[in-house]
C-alpha cells in the first residue's frame, strides 16, 4: 500500500496546452541538478582551448576601464562625483558586463540548445536561468580586481558593502527579465539575435557607466530610472565607494520595473514554452 501512494505521486496527465500556466517553482526545484550541470558546462567550456583562460574575465573590463578613463575621464573630463575616474568607471563596468553578458547569453540560449529542446523534457526555464548564472564566475573574478583597485586608491568600503550581493542579484534579475522575453521571442523570430547586439549598445549609453546620474536633471530622474541598470550601477557605487548621486528614489523605480518585467517574462515564457520544441 505504501508503494501505491508513491506511485500516485508520480502520476502525470498530459493535456493540450492552456493559455495560462503557473510558474511551477516546485518542478524547477526538482530539476536543480540539471540547472547546476548546465551552468557548470557553460563555465567549463567557455575558456577551453584559450591561452589566457579565465584571465579574459579580467582583461575585458580592465581594457574598457582604461579606454573610458582616457577618453571620458582625461579628455572629455566627465564629472565623476569626486571619485577617481578609473574606480568610478570600473565599479560600473562590472555590473554592466554581468548584465550585458547575461542578456546576450540567455536570449540566445534556447536557440543554442535546440537539440535539447527537441529531444528531452525538463522545465525550459532552466536554460535561460543557467545562462544568466554562468556569467557570475567571470564577474566574481573581476570583482577581486575591483576591490584591489578601490583599496589602491585609498578608499575603504564601509558597512554598505554588505548590500552588494543584493545589487548583484538585482542585476541578474534584470538580465533574466530581459532574457526570458528575448529568448522566448527568438524561438519564433530569429530577428532577435540581431536586435540584441545593438540593444545592448544603446543600453550602455542609457546607463550611468561612463558618467554619473547626477548629470540627469532632477525631474527626469524617475524616468531615467526606468532603466533598471541605472539603479544597479548607482547601487554598486553606493555600496562600494560610499558615494552615489541620487540613488534613493531611482532604486525604487528600478525595482518595480524589474519586478514587472520579470513576472511578465515568466508568464510569457511559460505560455510559449509548450511550443518551443515544435517551432525552434
Amino acid at each position, binding site marked *: 500500500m505504501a508503494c501505491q501512494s508513491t506511485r500516485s505521486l508520480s502520476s502525470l*496527465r*498530459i493535456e493540450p496546452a492552456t493559455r495560462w500556466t503557473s510558474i511551477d517553482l516546485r518542478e524547477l526545484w526538482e530539476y536543480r541538478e540539471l540547472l547546476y*550541470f548546465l551552468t557548470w558546462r557553460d563555465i567549463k567550456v567557455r575558456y577551453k582551448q584559450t591561452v589566457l583562460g579565465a584571465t579574459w574575465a579580467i582583461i575585458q573590463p580592465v581594457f574598457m576601464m582604461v579606454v573610458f578613463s582616457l577618453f571620458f575621464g582625461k579628455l572629455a573630463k566627465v564629472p565623476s562625483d569626486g571619485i577617481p575616474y578609473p574606480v568610478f568607471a570600473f565599479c560600473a563596468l562590472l555590473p554592466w558586463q554581468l548584465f550585458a553578458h547575461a542578456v546576450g547569453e540567455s536570449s540566445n540560449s534556447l536557440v543554442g540548445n535546440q537539440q535539447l529542446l527537441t*529531444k*528531452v523534457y525538463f522545465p525550459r526555464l532552466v536554460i535561460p536561468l543557467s545562462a544568466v548564472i554562468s556569467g557570475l564566475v567571470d564577474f566574481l573574478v573581476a570583482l577581486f580586481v575591483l576591490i584591489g583597485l578601490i583599496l589602491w586608491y585609498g578608499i575603504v568600503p564601509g558597512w554598505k558593502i554588505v548590500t552588494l550581493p543584493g545589487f548583484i542579484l538585482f542585476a541578474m534579475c534584470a538580465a533574466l527579465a530581459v532574457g526570458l522575453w528575448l529568448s522566448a521571442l527568438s*524561438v519564433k523570430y530569429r530577428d532577435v539575435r540581431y536586435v540584441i547586439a545593438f540593444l545592448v549598445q544603446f543600453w550602455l549609453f542609457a546607463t550611468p557607466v561612463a558618467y554619473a546620474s547626477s548629470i540627469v536633471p532632477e525631474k527626469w530622474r524617475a524616468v531615467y530610472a526606468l532603466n533598471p541598470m541605472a539603479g544597479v550601477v548607482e547601487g554598486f557605487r553606493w555600496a562600494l565607494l560610499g558615494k552615489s548621486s541620487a540613488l534613493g528614489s531611482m532604486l525604487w523605480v528600478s525595482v518595480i520595473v524589474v519586478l514587472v518585467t520579470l513576472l511578465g517574462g515568466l508568464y510569457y515564457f511559460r505560455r510559449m514554452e509548450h511550443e518551443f*520544441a515544435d517551432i525552434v
Partner: protein
Amino acid sequence: MSEVVIRAEHLSKRYVLGQREQYRLLRDTITEAAARPFAHLRNFRSGKNGDRTVARQDHETIWALNDVSFEITRGEIVGIVGPNGAGKSTLLKILSRITKPTKGHVEIEGRVGSLLEVGTGFHAELSGRENIYLNAAILGMRKLEVARKFDEIVSFAEIEKFIDTPVKRYSSGMYVRLAFAVAAHLETEILVVDEVLAVGDAQFQKKCLSKLRQVGTDGRTILFVSHNMAAVRGICETGFQLDRGGIVGSGEINDVIDRYLAQVITRSFVEVETPSFVLNNVTIEPLNADVIKTFETIEIRVALTAKRDIGDPGMYVGILTTENTRVAGLDFKDFSSVPPIKAGERFEMGFVIDELPLLGGTYQIEIHVKDMARHKIERVANLFQFEVAETSVYGGRKLDAWFGSVGLKPTPIQKLPAAVSDETAEHRKALVP
C-alpha cells in the same frame, strides 16, 4: 499485474506545415499583418467577400496524430511500427512531454525516461567523465545515482582508458557506446525508445538489445520504435501499427509486424527515372506465404518503360544489408536475354528465387538498368527495402547479429575422442537429426 500505466485517449497532434522546418522572421509576420486588410480590400473590390480564409490557407496543417487511443499495462514491452511520417516519433514526443497534444490526453503512472536520440547534450569539449554526468542530468538521473553506477557505465561503454579524454577525440563508435551506456542505465519505470539502435556496430547493438531486454524483465514498461523489424521482434511482446497518424492494427508483435510488412510490400510505388528508363514498379513478394521468410520462394519483379530505343536491355539486382554490405548480386543477362525494346514500350524483368538464404531482418535491393548495345549502365538512385520475417531456423532460437545475415543449411558432423564409450557416442548421435 495488469495495471494500466499509460492510458491515451483521443490523442491528436496538429502541425502547421512549414512551421517545423522554417522559423519565422518578424518581417514575415509584419508584412502578413500589413497585407491582410489589403487582401480584404481586394476581395471586396472583386466582389468575393466571403473569402476570408485566403491568408490562412498558405499555412496548411497536418494531423501527425489523429485520435489515437490505447492502454499499456505495467511491464509490457510495446513495439510501434509504421512507415516514415506515420506519427511514431510524434507519439513518443508527446509521451515524453517534449511537445503537447493538440487534443486528447494521456495519463501516465510513473517516471518516464526518453531515449529519442543517443547522446543528447553531449559537449565535444568535455571529457567522457564530464559528459556522463551532464548527459545523465539531462536524462533526469540524480548525481548520486550516477556516481553509484559510474563504473558500470564506463565498463559497459568499454572506454575505461579514455574516460578523461575530451569526447571530440573519440572515434564515432566510442562516442555512441558511451552515449548509449549512460542511457541504458536510466532507471525509470517507463522507458520510451526511438530509433536509437540504428547506430553502433552489430556487436554493440546486440549488447544494447540485451540490456534493454533486461530492463524489461525488471517489470518496467518499454515503448520501442524502430525500423529494424528484427530488433522489434527481439525485444517486444505486443505492439501496434501506426499509419498516417492513426492506429491501424495492434496485438501480438509478430502478427502486427507480419501484417505491416504485407502492407509495405504492396504499397504503391512512386516512379523513378534514369536517363533511358522509367521504373514503373518494383515488387518484392513472397510466392507461397504472406510474408517473406527465410528459405521460402520470393519473386523480384521490375516493370520498366523505355524512354528511347533499347538495343540490348539488361538489369542487375543487388541485395544489400541496411549497413550497405552487399550480400548477393544477380545479372539478368547471365540467365536470359531480352529482345530490343522500342521507345515508349513497357516490359518487365525479374527473378524468382528459391529458398531465399537470408535470415530475418531488413534488406535493400539495388537496381542497375542497362542497354548493353550502347554500353550504358544506369544505377537507380533509390534502394528498395524489404523485410525478411524471422522464422524458425536453427532450432527456433532468436537470431541476433552473431548469426550474420545469410541463412545456411548445415549438417552437423563430429568425431569423438576414442575414450568416449560407444554408448555415449550412440547417445550423442541420437541428438543429431
